[in-house]
């Protein structure tokens, strides 16, 4: 079944390339092929994830490999749903590489199915980690949209004014969604920690970095809502903030072990 996992990486990569060339050369046929490939990659990825869940007898989100795979899966489904609603190419141009890169990162993590350690056997587990994958995916796509916005700007308004506004607005909406979900991650994590270790909050590195990410995006939202920042500045913010998300996601596990070190 691991073959499905590697097949989805290859298909996501093919979709990313087809989309990039299709957009660059303005060839709708290539973009359509990219969309089909992305949907196929997503289907393979879904089957692999479901198989892994059944084989492990639990939610397949218990270690860094599974979590990264869940993150990529969330990015793919978000991209597909947004595309279905908005019918805008740029949504896929951004979500395809996100899904591909995150899944490739997963490929470098230990893949064997391990038994769930006692601390993870909780009903809060699904809510805590499930929201985290979607939250990270929303932030990552928002960062990708930020980068897309900046590239378009550099090209001198290759896209129409309305399209630029749409990209800017979509990044903001995704950050709203990611922020709401990250709040759920932090609060459910606190409840879970109290159940498992009797403490709501212990300044464990993963907790601390989730809080840092949360505050960073709170600043983004304030600058947008209060100071009416838009466009270029917000795009830069969204791009830079993604590095903080990535550090919380992967860097903390590798560099700052703590209570969450099972996630390595």
């Amino acid at each position, binding site marked *: 079944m691991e073959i499905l996992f590697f097949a989805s990486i290859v298909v996501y990569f093919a979709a990313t390339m087809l989309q990039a060339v299709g957009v660059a050369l303005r060839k709708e046929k290539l973009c359509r092929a990219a969309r089909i490939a992305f949907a196929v990659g997503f289907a393979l990825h879904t089957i692999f994830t479901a198989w892994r869940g059944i084989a492990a007898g639990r939610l397949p989100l218990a270690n860094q490999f599974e979590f990264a795979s869940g993150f990529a899966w969330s990015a793919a489904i978000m991209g597909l749903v947004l595309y279905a609603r908005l019918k805008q190419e740029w949504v896929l141009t951004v979500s395809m590489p996100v899904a591909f890169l995150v899944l490739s990162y997963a490929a470098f993590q230990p893949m064997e199915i391990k*038994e769930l350690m*006692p*601390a993870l*056997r*909780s009903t809060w587990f699904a809510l805590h980690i499930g929201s985290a994958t979607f939250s990270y995916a929303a932030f990552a796509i928002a960062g990708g949209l930020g980068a897309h916005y900046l590239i378009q700007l550099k090209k001198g308004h290759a896209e129409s004014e*309305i399209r630029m*506004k*749409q990209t*800017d*607005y979509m990044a*903001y*909406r995704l950050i*709203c*969604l990611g*922020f*709401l979900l990250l*709040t*759920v991650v932090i*609060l459910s994590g*606190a*409840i*879970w920690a109290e*159940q*498992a*270790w*009797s403490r*709501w*909050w212990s*300044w464990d*590195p993963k907790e*601390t*970095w989730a*809080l*840092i990410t949360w*505050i*960073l995006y*709170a*600043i983004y939202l*304030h*600058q*947008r*809502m*209060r*100071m*009416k920042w*838009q466009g270029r500045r917000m795009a830069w913010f969204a791009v830079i903030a993604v590095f903080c998300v990535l550090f919380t996601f992967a860097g*903390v596990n590798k560099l*700052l072990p703590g209570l969450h070190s099972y996630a390595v």
Partner: protein
Amino acid sequence: MQFGMILLVLVIACSAAGSLIVQQREPMEYVNRYGSQTAQLILALKLNDVFSAPYFFVLMAALCLNLTLCSILRLPRTMKAAQQLRTNACGVQPTSALEQGQADRLCGLLKKRHFRCEECDGRKIYTKNLFGFYGSFLTHLSFLLVLVVGAAAVVTAQVTDQTVMPGETLVLDDGASITVEAFQIEDATGKLDYASQLVMKSADGKREAAKQIRVNEPLSFEGYKVYQQTYGTAGSVLIHNNLNGASEVMTLIEACFLTLDGKNGMFFQALYPGYVTDADGSVTLITSTSGDYSDPVYDVLSVSAGMMTPVLAFPGETLTIGDVSFTLQDPVSYPGLRIKHMNTAILGALYAVFLLMVAALYLCFFTVPVAVAVTQDGYAVLAPKTQTGLLIDIQSCLEEEE
């Protein structure tokens, strides 16, 4: 940048320092890790214990104060804005022109988007999500409440750690009792489990709860939570007084001297989980921390007539020293319990404010208030600037069928 945002940036800076620099270690460890000059700086700035440093509390307090003042000062304006949106929509001049037939198309789009329609001075006013005006106020309120109620939950909780041997009962200050009926490291299938079977009784003995507790599954009973926190393994010895025939079983956790006359007896030093025998027949004791006592060995001293003789004894062996026989038993595993007493009202309030925070954020982000005034030849959108999405939708809807 505004003051509030500067405070948030400072919280980020402190948190990052607190996670990148190891916390609450001995000063020497900082010298070894970072060199003496950096260590001095870390200790002087209290970066070795950021989250309990006075400046961190001052920062959090300033943030709360700033947020409270911001929210209170802003509330009347928010309420006024909520009331005025409809009135404003009534009197506003159209900002964008509509061509023949487009007004109906726009009204159709707004109805499809669940806007409420009212007539006002011959124009149509469409409103939606007026309660969303209170989103940011409620978000700020919930953030403050999470901090305040969370702090109250931590400060008022009484926590004690206690080891209880299987079969023993622990009586708490208020008379409630906890009995550990059994403790197991592995379950029936051999998986690591660390579970204690507990029975907890109220002070008057009338109410009780029984539960097998393990990580993630504490016992909750009348404001108490009992956690399976740690575990240990202790030796056990049956002591028989050969003079009067009396016997007693004792648990051996720490080094101790068991004697009847103060001179002769058994000095218990340690219990080892296993041993290996080398080729020359000498025995090396194993100090494992896995919790598995597969071949337990007692390291004791036999003290008799002023002589101390080291002895390695196995469960089942008996040492007779003077008039006393010491029969070493199989080791017993026991749980370390954490007993936490919390005010149930505070706990309920904490869960409630968690929910409030999620609901408030939802209100903030996904129920943005907006009013659209539509006349036959133009329209105007009254909403925060972030309603770009609606403006885009309107433009696309109008452009689509042209």
